């Protein structure tokens, strides 16, 4: 009674009913995210500004920069960093955009997807949005608030990038370029925010929606790589391709960002449409009845862990198979591209093409292994999410020991890593041999990617050790993946010291098929992984659950 009387005197929600109380909700989501937004903005801006500042010292003369530009026009480099729009005049602005745009672009894409899913599907699957939607909150208000929060986060990152780059005084870096550079990041981020909003409608779990969004980011990077190497315009299908097409710091074109605006509007409209057609808590697909009894496999600890990890392991394997196949499919493009160059042929003879293709395969294997290292962290963190969700407690109060439970998860994820990497190698090998017409490369490329399995095990070992000893610090495991990525991606360009490179487990894996196979570093990595795993198991035995 009292509540009814009060609500009639309180100011009613303004705007359309489906967006009722949007403003209040938005203030709340922004408040929850404010420190995260600050961290993303500072992190992105600082790591970006560090690049031109260090390049001024590393490549002071135009001749040195020209040489670098030439190195970076190899197909492998184009696949990784994109097209160099300023081969003739490779100034610091062009260098920064060429080498950093995809790197930070992928970061803001991931940030945007995580933000949108966190405020939509995660709220819904935990039941919190039931509480919110039962208040005078419009049906679309949480979705729109999530997208506007993503917009605010992207705007903050874009602004931080523009202001920090604009104030760098180095040849080729100016304010108009800096503003466009920031805007390009907002465009990439919002494209993936819209895509994540759609994924959040389709998947019943936040994990599924995040997985699909991250897969879309990977696909966008890959499509652009294929398009850039083949030069066939395929890159225009990727938001990262739109950002690249601005030729920022070289020609400063704003028009290529228009597709991003249209794409964001379209995905937002699709998400809103799906949102108004489904029940709260439901995904697009209805649940079917399942078995009334557990099969024999589910009754063992390892079988139980496999059941929880099965979907992710198979999904990542399939995605990696496709990624490998896409890289493999344009290996003959590289061969013909190089073959077309008389200079190369006269200098090295035609035998050298085979070596160059093989060298390219070694680089691709390293990149693929670094990308899917995310699997080891995500799947390795599963025991933590089980613990936080309250699902570890009932299992750990049965006859299953803590070491047995955690060890089963680790064993299954270790196997999953092998599966994911072998699938990627198989894709690269199959498509590569088909496009080159040479089946001898199939086992070589498969082995090249699969050889990174012990490096993934070390990443997994770090995750398990943190879970046992300091579960709240588990996000630090991403640092190992991030460092490995930087070492593979920019290690040579930044001339990182050997000890820093040595911290990346990937650095110790022989670069097959270019380098010779050597089992010793792989065994050493496996030993490190086992030591970390043991540390995690022992520490987990000694701590509280839940902690």
């Amino acid at each position: 009674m009292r509540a009814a009387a009060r609500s009639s005197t309180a100011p009613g929600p303004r705007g359309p009913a489906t967006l009722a109380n949007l403003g209040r909700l938005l203030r709340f989501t922004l408040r929850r995210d404010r420190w995260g937004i600050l961290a993303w903005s500072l992190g992105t801006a600082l790591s970006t500004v560090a690049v031109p500042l260090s390049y001024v010292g590393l490549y002071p003369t135009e001749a040195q920069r020209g040489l670098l530009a030439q190195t970076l026009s190899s197909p492998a480099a184009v696949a990784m960093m994109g097209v160099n729009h300023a081969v003739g005049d490779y100034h610091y602005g062009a260098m920064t955009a060429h080498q950093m745009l995809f790197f930070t672009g992928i970061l803001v894409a991931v940030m945007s997807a995580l933000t949108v899913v966190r405020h939509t599907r995660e709220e819904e699957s935990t039941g919190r949005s039931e509480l919110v939607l039962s208040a005078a909150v419009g049906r679309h208000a949480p979705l729109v608030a999530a997208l506007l929060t993503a917009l605010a986060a992207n705007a903050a990152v874009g602004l931080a990038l523009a202001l920090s780059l604009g104030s760098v005084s180095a040849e080729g870096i100016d304010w108009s370029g800096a503003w466009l550079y920031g805007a390009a990041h907002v465009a990439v981020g919002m494209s993936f925010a819209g895509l994540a909003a759609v994924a959040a409608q389709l998947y019943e779990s936040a994990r599924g929606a995040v997985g699909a969004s991250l897969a879309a980011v990977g696909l966008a990077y890959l499509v652009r790589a294929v398009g850039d190497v083949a030069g066939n315009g395929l890159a225009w299908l990727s938001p990262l391709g739109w950002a690249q097409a601005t030729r920022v710091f070289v020609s400063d074109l704003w028009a290529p960002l228009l597709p991003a605006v249209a794409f964001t509007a379209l995905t937002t409209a699709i998400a809103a449409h799906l949102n108004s057609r489904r029940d709260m808590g439901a995904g697009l697909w209805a649940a079917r009845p399942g078995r009334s009894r557990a099969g024999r496999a589910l009754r063992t600890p390892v079988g139980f862990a496999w059941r929880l990890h099965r979907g992710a392991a198979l999904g990542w394997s399939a995605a990696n198979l496709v990624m490998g196949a896409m890289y493999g499919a344009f290996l003959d493009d590289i061969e013909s591209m190089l073959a077309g160059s008389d200079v190369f042929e006269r200098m090295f003879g035609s035998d050298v093409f085979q070596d160059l293709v093989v060298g390219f395969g070694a680089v691709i294997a390293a990149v693929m292994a670094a990308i899917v290292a995310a699997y080891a962290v995500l799947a390795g963190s599963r025991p933590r999410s089980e613990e936080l969700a309250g699902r570890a407690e009932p299992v750990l109060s049965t006859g299953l020991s803590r070491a047995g439970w955690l060890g089963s998860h680790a064993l299954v994820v270790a196997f999953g890593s092998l599966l994911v990497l072998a699938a990627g190698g198989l894709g690269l090998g199959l498509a590569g041999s088909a496009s080159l017409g040479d089946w001898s490369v199939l086992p070589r490329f498969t082995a090249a990617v699969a050889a990174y399995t012990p490096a993934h095990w070390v990443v997994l070992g770090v995750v398990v050790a943190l879970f046992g000893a300091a579960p709240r610090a588990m996000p630090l495991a991403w640092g190992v993946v991030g460092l490995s990525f930087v070492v593979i991606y920019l290690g040579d360009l930044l001339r990182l010291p050997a000890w820093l490179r040595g911290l990346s487990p990937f650095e110790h894996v022989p670069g097959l098929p270019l380098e010779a196979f050597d089992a010793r570093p792989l065994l050493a990595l496996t030993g490190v992984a086992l030591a970390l795993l043991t540390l995690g198991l022992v520490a987990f035995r000694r701590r509280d659950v839940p902690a």
Partner: protein
Amino acid sequence: MTTAIAVQGLRKSYGKALALDGLDLAVRAGEVHGLLGPNGAGKTTTLRILLGLLRADGGTVAVLGMDPWRDAVALHRRLAYVPGDVELWPSLTGGEAIDLMGSLRGGLDRRRREELIRRFDLDPTKRCRTYSKGNRQKVALVAALAADAELLVLDEPTTGLDPLMEAEFQACVREAKSAGRTVLLSSHILAQVEALSDRISIVRQGRVVESGTLDDLRHLTRTTVVARTRLPADEVAGMPGVHDLRSEGGEVRFDVDGEHLGDVMAALAGLGIVTLVSRPPTLEQILLRHYSSRAEGAHGREATTA
């Protein structure tokens, strides 16, 4: 063995927040023991220590003669636990979750599993993500009750169940007791504890403040008396142990402490009793008396809502 659970001086703190402050608990083998207390009193922390999930900061704990922290696995094979907030694996069906828990405990009785599924009216083919809270609770209950466990540890096991299912649950606990099992039942549903428990411990602010049979506890608290006497009974007001005396229309109504009940009755008899109604204290009154004194005893601890 006569003692199933023996706990002395149990202490546990989370950072600066003190959860258990010298808790003592004794559960005899074969009894149903009720653990009562408001939210935040330390019930769940106590159960988690008894299961070896949390490590005690101090005190001694023995469950079925074992140290739960050191012998967790051996102990777990002999008990079954139902958490207060049952979370299940969204992609597994209810039937799979029951079998999974059963096999991890070391087997469950097939016939009893089917019977319990029927009695609790559970659809085991549904995925756990589609279950309501009550249905998730049923999955955990079926898994625990179908296991061959000597000890059942139940943490507010029926929150979310409807009254029919509550009755079924009480029948199951009685059957478990007659089969010789020990049950530790944490709850704040008074009627459930009153109906099921042989003995009760009341937890408040990390200590057991009262422990015994319901009769023992009644002895410690006040009985409500309504009497009509031939001579005026106002003089009873001055007797030790008498509280809140009101008289109207020749009838007196007062509360009297358990240990003074005999003296007061003798005095009333001397005044010539015409009618007499005496009501034993309900568990609710016992609890309210303990809970409401919370404010007095709280020295700087965080206030909890009951």
